[in-house]
């Protein structure tokens, strides 16, 4: 009986020792891990880590692994949230020894709808635009209108989108938006577009069926396809998208169309946050 405490102590020491040796042996015997793994782990620490997937890779770590293999990758497939962060981007560039042209790459999301389209009926179904659009393309008068059921709000990783309940439309806060583009495919009405951060204006409407039913009958602020915006912009600030029958703005040039904004009879060429710099 008196030897039991000694056996107990010996036992625990022995098991602990064996366990320690076992871990040591296992870590010595096994092959060293892929060296690019550690490099990828270091690169991942420099990324924002939002796991948004806007780079085209499944998560930040997969992107870091791809960058570790191909150092020029960020120029082609940039991490868009990283571009917003000046200090983070500087460290990232210093680590990889390259420089990324941010002016070209920074993007912002915007919603091509001004809201206010009246309701055809009360919708009590599943609280999601994607579900609502299954019922005769939504419950608004305008079949292209924002439904305001916030699919984009839920998917946004930085809470940059809010629903304006008075105007019944989604709005993007360009201060918060990181241009990841997750919201664009989430919108079943295809109302969300990504434009360069320098783009000074956009069309707050997506009413395309001009020849069937004129937009003016469906919505008080819908595009009436008058093309006056094109006529008052001699320098090509405003183009015309023949397929959609709507004005278009060249994302490459991002020109400020002051005359078109003033002349639009529906006042739906809306200024963005970048417009203040152009004025």
């Amino acid at each position, binding site marked *: 009986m008196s030897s039991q405490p000694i056996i*107990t102590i010996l036992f625990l020491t022995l098991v602990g020792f064996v*366990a320690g040796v*076992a*871990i040591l042996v296992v*870590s010595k015997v096994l092959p060293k*891990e892929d060296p690019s*793994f550690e490099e990828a782990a270091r690169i991942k620490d420099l990324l924002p880590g939002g796991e948004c997937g806007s780079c085209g890779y499944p998560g930040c*770590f997969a992107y870091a692994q791809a960058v570790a293999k191909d150092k020029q990758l960020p120029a082609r497939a940039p991490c868009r949230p990283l571009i917003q962060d000046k200090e983070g981007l500087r460290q990232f560039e210093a680590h990889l020894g390259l420089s990324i042209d941010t002016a070209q790459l920074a993007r912002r999301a915007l919603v091509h709808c001004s809201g206010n389209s009246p309701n055809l009926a009360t919708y009590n179904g599943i*609280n999601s635009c994607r579900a609502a659009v299954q019922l005769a393309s939504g419950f608004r008068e305008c079949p292209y209108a924002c439904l305001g059921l916030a699919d984009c709000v839920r998917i946004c990783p930085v809470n940059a989108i809010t629903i304006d309940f008075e105007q019944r439309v989604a709005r993007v806060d360009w201060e918060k938006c990181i241009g990841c583009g997750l919201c664009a495919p989430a919108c079943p009405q295809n109302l969300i577009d990504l434009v360069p951060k320098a783009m000074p204006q956009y069309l707050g409407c997506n009413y395309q069926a001009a020849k069937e039913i004129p937009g003016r009958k469906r919505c008080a602020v819908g595009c009436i396809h008058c093309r006056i915006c094109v006529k008052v912009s001699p320098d090509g600030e405003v183009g015309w998208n023949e397929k959609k029958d709507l004005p278009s703005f060249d994302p490459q040039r991002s020109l400020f169309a002051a005359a078109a904004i003033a002349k639009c009879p529906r006042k739906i060429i809306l200024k963005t946050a970048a417009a203040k710099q152009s004025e």
Partner: protein
Amino acid sequence: MRELVVIFFGMALVNNFVLVRFLGLCPFFGVSTKLTNALSMGVAVLLVMLVASAVTWPIYHLLLVPYQVEFMETVIFILVIAVLVQIIEITIRRTNLTLYRAFGIYLPLITTNCAVLGLAFINIRHEYTFFESIFASLGAGIGFTLVLIIMSGLRERLEITDLPHAFTGTPIAFIIAMFLGLAFLAFAGMIG
């Protein structure tokens, strides 16, 4: 053979670890919000349970019993399971990085999972032979994975349901767990 099948189904359904024995409740609520997460957690637990019972059974019967220090089973089992998880993690990390990424945080989490330790004790209490304890761990792991998958499927459905505000999230999960527990109680008395 019949014995083994009875033990397997007894562990997986009749005495399900989560819903009947109330072991491993933290991952049951914590990791059951998404189906993919639930699946990786379940598979990780299954793997660790298998290895843990294959190691703790010989330790108990070949070391603790002959030296009459059975009272030390708790501390020894905790130590052994922690080391095992560590070794499995190193092995996966060095050999298959994709799998390591898929398991992610879940493998280290199991180090402190009561379901694994509970299984080691149950194997001893029921006086299972080595093979019986292996089958018991298979059944326990599969039963755990099954319940996690059922729960995550239900919770994914709940995401799009219009619930009273006070019930969203964890409260409704508790209510669902209650119904699941009731459903699994129907197995009681079938075998084992």
